[in-house]
């Protein structure tokens, strides 16, 4: 009993340490770098401890999924009832909490090294721009440039702490409202962190673009939440997913395209996910978001925030599939599957033509999220959840690895004094000798991404998605995803070949060296997960090795749903396809690109792909320019200046003319003239008349006073006495 209470308390407290860290750093320790990162990492560590505790406890619970750990409080009085908020640990949130805690902690530790803690302050570093290096003199009197510490060091940790708070809140919440709160906090932190180097105009624009684009999704999602609340009167997951509630939602038909209420709500919520997880058509913000520092890209745009979108679809899966019988896809699910598959292949094609190491990974993220969304669209719940978690680990690994590479390149740039883009892969080459730890971990991550068989986690999760697609007969989807998987392996190997293999192509690459332990240790730890996490989800009926270890993941996470999904019978076709596309893509990528030394030799630098199918230009033309025009011409010039100011000026003129009338026709003639001057004139006239009495001659006075006195005396005597 006491254990239960402590357990629930710990779940409530999971999001708290990062939040406290945020406030402490912002309010008190903003100037102190070491103290700030210690507070942040301490907080992340505390949340990690709590998460591991919850994870271990949850593992031991029988029939976890039917029984969950839930704790609620009454929060908002709503008429006769209370709106309750609370925390929920069921299988899905258990595994989510696990990967969130690990990736957050690793990225926090990585950030210490990434922002060059311990290095001297830069020569002319200013807050708001990336650090540019410091000149140091060594003992021989020789000057050379080294990397300098980030001026806004503490602020970064504050922001990522706030972000961690948002993600933990989202994962542990038991209702859509606090989930949405966490969702929005992460959106805010995304804006703050993409625009971290606010001195760069490109970073500022990217931050606004990210926020605006996800906002479109968020508004629609809020509509969905409101509609759901009005239909069911609750936002708590366990209550919505009761069979009676779901039946009611399915039964009600809405006027929108004839969808059922469940389908419509699912669609609206999914549109929010499209924004947050950067699916087509709202994918445009994620590549630009690479303007932020690499830990931000890793955390927000690989491991956690974009995963939050997929997490929401996983959470609302019972609602989305409420009227799904197993054969014909419902309209909502069709939309989801289509968008997921389309995005997967679209992004994969763009990724092969980009040269910036982070851009490639960004498009790769979009593509992989498309995989997960497509899987959910066809009802492959466990496969999607599995891929979500493995992807979080290896994508975070890849991003952190790319950050390490960029750091090495920047060191080379400072050393040689060359002015080249440290992110451009065509400036790299041969880094495997200079940065071995980075190379091996990046390779493991890349192989996991490509789905290298057996040894990497990506293989197991991707294979499950393909198997599920094939097994349920979704052949178009299967082929699309297979092609996308091929392209994935291809561009990943392209990336590895250009960056690490071969010979250094520039002097900067020649002078690169390995990054400090704060950056490499997280890479190693994440690499361990990227390899081993796959082995918890080996399907039971896999040839040879299936069945040696039970498919823990399937059993555990499958228990979240009311009906545990059955594992599919084994089919050789998806397995062979998986092997073919993965190995084939890797092979081709290596073969083609080991000869390519410059962009001119690269045959895939197609301008359509390099310009991302011109989506940005289209949106600019369709939406941004009209909005600017409306703001300028309509709202400002017409409404504000002409109409509103016109009314105000009319009022002013009326008041002025009224004042003029009052002054000239009432105040001056009547009040001044009649009352004021008139009284004065009367007094003056009477005074000038009466003054002649005072003649100054005493005898005159005496005579007059005697006469008056006599008269009065006579009066007195005859009238009164």
């Amino acid at each position, binding site marked *: 009993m006491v254990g239960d209470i402590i357990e629930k308390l710990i779940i409530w407290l999971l999001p708290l340490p990062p939040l406290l860290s945020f406030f402490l750093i912002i309010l008190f320790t903003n100037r102190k770098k070491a103290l700030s990162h210690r507070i942040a990492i301490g907080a992340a560590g505390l949340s990690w401890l709590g998460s591991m505790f919850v994870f271990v406890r949850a593992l031991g619970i029988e029939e976890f999924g039917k029984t969950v750990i839930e704790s609620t409080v009454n929060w908002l009085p709503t008429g006769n009832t209370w709106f309750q908020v609370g925390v929920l640990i069921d299988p899905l949130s258990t595994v989510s909490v696990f990967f969130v805690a690990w990736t957050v902690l690793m990225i926090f530790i990585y950030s210490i090294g990434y922002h060059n803690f311990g290095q001297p302050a830069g020569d002319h570093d200013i807050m708001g721009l990336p650090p540019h290096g410091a000149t140091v003199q060594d003992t021989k009197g020789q000057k050379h440039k080294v990397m300098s510490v980030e001026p806004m060091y503490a602020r970064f940790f504050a922001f990522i702490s706030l972000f961690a708070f948002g993600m933990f809140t989202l994962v542990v919440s038991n209702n859509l409202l606090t989930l949405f709160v966490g969702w929005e906090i992460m959106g805010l932190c995304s804006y703050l962190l993409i625009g971290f180097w606010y001195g760069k105009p490109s970073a500022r624009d990217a931050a606004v673009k990210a926020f605006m684009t996800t906002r479109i999704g968020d508004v629609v999602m809020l509509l969905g939440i409101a509609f759901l609340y009005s239909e069911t009167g609750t936002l708590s997951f366990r209550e919505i997913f009761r069979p009676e509630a779901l039946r009611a939602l399915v039964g009600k038909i809405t006027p929108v395209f004839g969808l059922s209420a469940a389908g419509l709500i699912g669609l609206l919520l999914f549109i929010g996910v499209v924004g947050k997880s950067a699916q087509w058509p709202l994918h445009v913000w994620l590549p630009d978001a690479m303007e932020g520092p690499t830990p931000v890209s890793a955390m927000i745009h690989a491991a956690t925030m974009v995963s939050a979108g997929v997490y929401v679809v996983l959470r609302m899966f019972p609602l989305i599939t409420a009227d799904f019988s197993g054969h014909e896809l419902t309209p909502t699910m069709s939309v989801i599957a289509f968008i997921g598959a389309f995005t997967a292949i679209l992004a994969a094609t763009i990724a092969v033509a980009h040269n910036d190491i982070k851009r490639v990974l960004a498009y790769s993220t979009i593509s992989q999220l498309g995989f997960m969304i497509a899987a959910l669209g066809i009802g492959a719940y466990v496969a999607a959840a599995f891929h979500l978690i493995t992807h979080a680990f290896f994508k975070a690994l890849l991003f952190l690895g790319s950050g390490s590479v960029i750091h090495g390149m920047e060191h080379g740039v400072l050393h040689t004094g060359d002015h080249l883009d440290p992110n451009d892969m065509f400036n790299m080459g041969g880094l495997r000798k200079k940065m071995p730890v980075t190379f091996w971990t990046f390779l493991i991550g890349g192989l996991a991404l490509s789905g290298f068989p057996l040894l990497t986690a990506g293989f197991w999760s991707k294979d499950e998605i393909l198997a599920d697609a094939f097994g349920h007969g979704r052949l178009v989807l299967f082929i699309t995803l297979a092609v996308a998987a091929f392209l994935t392996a291809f561009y990943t190997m392209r990336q590895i070949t250009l960056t690490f293999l071969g010979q250094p192509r520039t002097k900067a690459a020649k002078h690169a060296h390995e990054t400090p332990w704060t950056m490499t240790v997280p890479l190693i730890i994440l690499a361990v997960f990227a390899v081993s996490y796959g082995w918890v989800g080996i399907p039971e009926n896999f040839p040879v090795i299936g069945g040696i270890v039970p498919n823990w993941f399937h059993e555990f996470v499958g228990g979240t749903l009311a009906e545990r999904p059955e594992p599919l019978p084994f089919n050789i076709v998806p397995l062979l396809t998986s092997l073919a596309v993965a190995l084939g893509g890797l092979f081709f990528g290596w073969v083609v690109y080991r000869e390519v030394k410059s962009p001119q030799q690269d045959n895939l630098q197609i301008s359509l792909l390099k310009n991302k199918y011109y989506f940005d230009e289209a949106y600019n033309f369709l939406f941004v320019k009209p909005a600017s025009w409306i703001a300028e011409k309509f709202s400002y010039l017409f409404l504000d200046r002409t109409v509103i100011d016109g009314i105000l000026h009319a009022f002013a003129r009326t008041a002025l003319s009224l004042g003029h009338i009052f002054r000239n026709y009432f105040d001056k003639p009547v009040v001044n003239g009649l009352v004021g001057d008139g009284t004065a004139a009367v007094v003056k006239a009477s005074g000038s008349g009466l003054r002649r009495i005072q*003649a100054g001659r005493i005898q005159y006075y*005496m005579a007059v006073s005697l006469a008056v006195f006599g008269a009065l005396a006579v009066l007195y005597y005859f009238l009164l006495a």
Partner: protein
Amino acid sequence: MSIPLSWFLILSAALFCIGLFGVLARKNAIAILLGIELMLNAVNINLVAFWRYLDPAQMAGQVFVIIVFAVAAAEVAVGLALIISVYRRRNTVVADEIDMMKW
């Protein structure tokens, strides 16, 4: 004393009115003061007559008269000093010409 009281009173009234005429009708400022002296003497006669005829044992009447003497003396002294001062300034003792305190 066989003189009726009314004789004294009428005498003092007449003296008073002569003095009044002098005050109102004379040009010279000193002549005005002379008229005032006559009026004061008439008052004194009245007082002494009343003292003698009503209650000679009570000294209030005579005391009053003595005080009137003193006041008259003071007034004449100050008044003449004023007239002399005005005479030095404006070279006139005609009351009608001393009319500066007017409009």
